[in-house]
């Protein structure tokens, strides 16, 4: 029997001709990422391991993104610990405030991930890089520290679920809507421990940014990784970024899948995930009565320049409703600068938005837009758990950037066609 793309990448990283689901392997890691929340505990663990040096500093990536610019003394101490570790270990892929960004947008932007790579990161949304045809998965800090020491990580080869998308994408429907619709169908544990392979005619036409959004949220269905077959759009995206060539792999025609889920997107309208699980999905038109207090546009899910352009298209010449605080966060310094040059900041400022420096900030209730008790937000982020963006009695609705922008204008959840 043939192999899926996930199985091929894992096999190539453990020196095996082939692997099959359920098999335990010790896999070589091409990149091992940590950030200002997860790297500090990993550094402590690394010190306990007792090795003076990491196995290969060039495969480490350390990113300041969660509580930056530092919100308090404790977060500043964590950032300092990571900064000093990077210097002591000779980690060149260390990204400082002002030259950094949300890690899962920053790493692709800097050309650090290549197709066919095996990437681990101490952040659950590490699955994002599957958009480039890499196997990438989130781990904890101890796993990360052990991988720093050895260059390897043990894992169980996951079975793969094949998601086949068909039909033409309707207007105002994007990658965010496809992945929310998918999670709504299979549930937040529908792909627990499994690989999610996204394919079908619709996927071929998706932008690379739509694919990043979809792979990013594989974890919200419990997935170990989400992956697309890399194609010309990946080549175009990576061109000029100075990265490695990588391996453009594809699943074999006779590869084994645990199951197949088919989604016809033809009649889809923008999808919104209601509190407090990403699986609580509804078409946007069913939620038009929901009044909101805040809108956040950004994050590793939807903080790309394409997402900001989409928001600007809806917001141009309009104003956020008086009751709404509109917070827009370009995901990286590069995107921030490009958005500024394009004049998007003028559109946002005229709409009454607060434009922030890159940070994960409000997505995880860190800072830069925390919700009070009883407040309601529409957010382009990835999680709407209880208390995710602030008080346990606040509520988060997840949506695409166009719906978020239209909702900011309306003061309630709104379809962008009506904005």
């Amino acid at each position, binding site marked *: 029997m043939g192999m899926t793309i996930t199985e091929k990448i894992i096999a190539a990283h453990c020196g095996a001709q082939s692997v099959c689901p359920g098999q*335990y392997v010790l896999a070589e890691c091409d990149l091992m990422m940590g950030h200002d929340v997860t790297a500090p505990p990993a550094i*402590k663990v690394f010190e306990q391991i007792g090795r003076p040096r990491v196995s290969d500093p060039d495969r480490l990536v350390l990113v300041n993104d969660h*509580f930056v610019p530092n919100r*308090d003394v404790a977060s500043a101490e964590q950032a300092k610990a990571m900064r000093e570790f990077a210097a002591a270990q000779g980690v060149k892929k260390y990204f400082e405030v002002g030259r950094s960004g949300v890690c899962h947008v920053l790493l692709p932007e800097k050309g650090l991930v290549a197709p066919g790579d095996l990437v681990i990161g101490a*952040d*659950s949304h590490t699955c994002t890089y599957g958009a480039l045809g890499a196997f990438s998965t989130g781990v904890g800090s101890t796993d990360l520290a052990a991988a720093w020491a050895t260059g390897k990580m043990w894992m169980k080869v996951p079975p793969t679920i094949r998601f086949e998308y068909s039909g033409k994408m309707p207007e105002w429907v994007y990658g965010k809507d496809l992945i929310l619709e998918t999670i709504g169908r299979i549930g937040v*544990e529908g792909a*627990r421990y499994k690989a999610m392979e996204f394919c079908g005619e619709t996927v071929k036409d998706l932008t690379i940014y739509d694919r990043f959004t979809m792979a990013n949220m594989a974890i919200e269905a419990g997935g170990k990784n989400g992956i697309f077959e890399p194609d010309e759009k990946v080549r175009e995206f990576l061109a000029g970024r100075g990265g490695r060539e990588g391996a453009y792999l594809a699943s074999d025609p006779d590869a084994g899948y645990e199951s197949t889920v088919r989604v016809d997107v033809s009649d889809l309208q923008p999808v919104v995930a209601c509190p407090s699980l990403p699986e609580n999905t509804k078409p946007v038109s069913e939620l038009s009565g929901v009044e909101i207090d805040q809108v956040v546009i950004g994050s590793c899910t939807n903080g790309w320049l394409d997402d900001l352009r989409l928001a600007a298209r809806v917001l141009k010449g309009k104003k956020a409703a008086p009751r709404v605080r509109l917070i827009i966060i370009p995901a990286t310094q590069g995107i921030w600068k490009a958005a500024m040059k394009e004049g998007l900041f003028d559109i946002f400022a005229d709409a009454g938005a607060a434009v922030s420096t890159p940070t994960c900030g409000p997505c995880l209730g860190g800072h830069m837009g925390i919700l009070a008790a009883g407040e309601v937000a529409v957010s382009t982020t990835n999680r709407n758990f209880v208390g*995710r963006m602030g008080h346990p009695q606040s509520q988060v609705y997840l949506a695409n950037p166009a719906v978020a922008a239209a909702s900011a204008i309306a003061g309630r959840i709104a379809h962008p066609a009506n904005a």
Partner: protein
Amino acid sequence: MTRRRFVQSASKGSTAMNASAAIKGNAWVFGDHVDTDVIIPATYLVTSDPAQLALHCMEGAGPGFIDKISPGDIIVAGENFGCGSSREHAPIAIKGAGISCVLADSFARIFFRNAVNIGLPVFEVAGIGKGVADGDSLEILPDSRKVRNLTKGAEFDYEPYPDFLNEIISAGGLIQWVRKKG
């Protein structure tokens, strides 16, 4: 139930899960899809000190969990316990609070790895989420792979860890395993 504060000393490192020792304690029952934001809200992720994190353990499900529990108590949940972020602070907070183990119908994969890696015993036990009520007295018997609900007289079987995990567990966690491998 006694209201006693118990917080594990911050200086303690990860300890081995003794694969054959019985565990006994009282249950605190949660539902399906208990996420890591509930286990330890992100705003507290500015430390990895078990004692500090323990103060906010399960805060997303309501305040004061740490004040209600006794050392050795057991967290019981339904499907997909620990879903969401990769924060190792979640099992650290639970272990730091003095919880002896977590029993659930199923675990999210990153949480499961993290728990094993830091030496918090976790057992996947089919039907446990609906078979236990708050305060029930539970006993886990690793040799016979059974969980007994001593209050209700019910019994649950569970699957053992695969050999590969047992190797890490008997080494005392991932750090010790890496040290051993050299």
